[in-house]
């Protein structure tokens, strides 16, 4: 499946968040959307998955999702968005409950994704009993349970500490390599984008425009190796020069009426 964003524009009142974005997400790739805070990258992700209505432009899809996909465009949220009154397994089951599948298959799916994310021992725990990393694993398990055609990740690691982030990143890469689900990964963290993405789309801010798309020609499995790290470091510098100036402006800005992302 391929997603094509055409001339996407979005404004919040007088603030132009996005302007004339043309972007294609190819089948089986991870596309990272990167940019300073307030550049509208989360807004763009919301538009791509159909939970935000753009002011102008449209998103098209080519090809049909696989028949076993219950929710083709599936989000993983920065704040996990777990229902605090449901246990881990019930949070995962929430994504399946309104689909007409037999209860046995639903339980099997829950069991399967809990096993893949290492959550089987925590299935009856409530979210408040889990660490941030474990909570996001629940978010990932819930997303995998519906067999998404496109995963939409909205800064999934930003609420976590550095160690947890590294651990979860490795888990995520392993999961992704086994499935190769098409994914759009929004982040402000350059290292995450470089570790994960096949292509990195850089957004400018106010108005959010597509500045550049950089392809990373290195298999994800190699990027953890020392040699891979060296090559990525050079790329990191190059991209950092691109976004540094804007990040500086973003950091010095006084927010008006709260963040708009």
């Amino acid at each position, binding site marked *: 499946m391929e997603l094509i964003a055409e001339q996407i524009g979005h404004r919040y009142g007088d603030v132009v968040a996005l302007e004339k974005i043309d972007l294609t997400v190819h089948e089986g790739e991870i596309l990272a959307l990167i940019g300073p805070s307030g550049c509208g990258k989360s807004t763009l992700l919301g538009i791509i998955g159909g939970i935000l209505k753009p002011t102008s432009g449209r998103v098209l899809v080519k090809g049909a999702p696989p028949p076993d996909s219950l929710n083709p465009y599936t989000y993983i949220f920065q704040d996990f968005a777990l229902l605090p009154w449901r246990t881990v397994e019930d949070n995962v089951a929430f994504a399946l409950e309104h689909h007409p599948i037999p209860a046995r298959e639903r339980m099997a799916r829950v069991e399967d994704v809990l096993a893949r994310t290492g959550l089987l021992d925590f299935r009856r725990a409530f979210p408040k009993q889990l660490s941030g990393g474990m909570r996001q694993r629940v978010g990932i398990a819930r997303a995998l349970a*519906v067999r998404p055609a496109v995963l939409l990740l909205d800064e999934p690691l930003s609420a976590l500490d550095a160690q947890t982030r590294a651990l979860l990143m490795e888990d995520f890469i392993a999961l992704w390599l086994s499935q190769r689900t098409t994914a759009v990964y929004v982040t402000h963290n350059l290292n995450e984008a470089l570790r994960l993405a096949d292509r990195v789309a850089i957004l400018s801010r106010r108005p959010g425009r597509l500045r550049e798309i950089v392809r990373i020609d290195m298999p994800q499995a190699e990027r953890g190796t020392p040699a891979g790290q060296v090559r990525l470091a050079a790329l990191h510098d190059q991209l950092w020069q691109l976004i540094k100036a804007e990040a500086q402006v973003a950091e010095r800005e006084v927010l008006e009426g709260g963040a708009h992302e």
Partner: protein
Amino acid sequence: MSDPNARAIEFRGGGFVIRPYRGAAIVFFVVLIALWETAVRAGWVSALALPAPSSIVKAFYDLAGSGPFWRNITDSLFRIVVGWSVGSAAGLVIGAAMGIWSLPRAIGIPAVSALFPIPKIALLPLFILWFGIGEASKVATIAIGVFFPTAIATYTGIDGVPRNLIRMAQSFGSPWPSIVWKVILPGALPGILAGIRISASFALILLVAAEMIGAQYGIGAFILTAGNLMQTDQLLAGVVMLSMLGLIIGTALTRLEKWLLRWR
């Protein structure tokens, strides 16, 4: 290690920590009741103005043997249970509508703001004209008094449901009734339960007031009659019953909250 020049850093933390003192409350009540009893027995206080705890207990004991006295309790319980249930159910439904839909909210908030400040007991004479002097007028007073805090608690509770959870449910394609049932209502439950706590105390106040204005039986009527006859021991026995009723309701609600909100 121990350098003669090294000194221990002075501790400046601590304090402002509330510790549990299990027996303190019991000791306080025992002392208070003992003082009260002594004050009456020693003649410092007139037994007519403030009967001793022992005479209140005795009044209880004597009353418990009489049939009409139990009728006071059953009548009161009936009124508060029915009035509170009807008022809460209506408050939940209207409050939920105000929390979910824009039009009910646009009408509801001004209406609630206008009607909530009316002391509901002022409506009892009107309800007596409408429904007669029987149970319906008292039940209606309690119900309407309970309705407003429940409706307000419900829609503010719904407002407090994190938007990201609703967005999450929408992003998974959860249908509208499921979102209300599985996300919005459980999310509003802590607020609704807080409202129920308030409405229960409203119900108790209105019950007594309504019974004092126009009832033959009921704890409120009983207290009023005892006062008219200067039977202060019976009067205080009635007050103690109200205190116990309030305590029972409060404890039951705490239990319910603990169980329903065990995920917190």
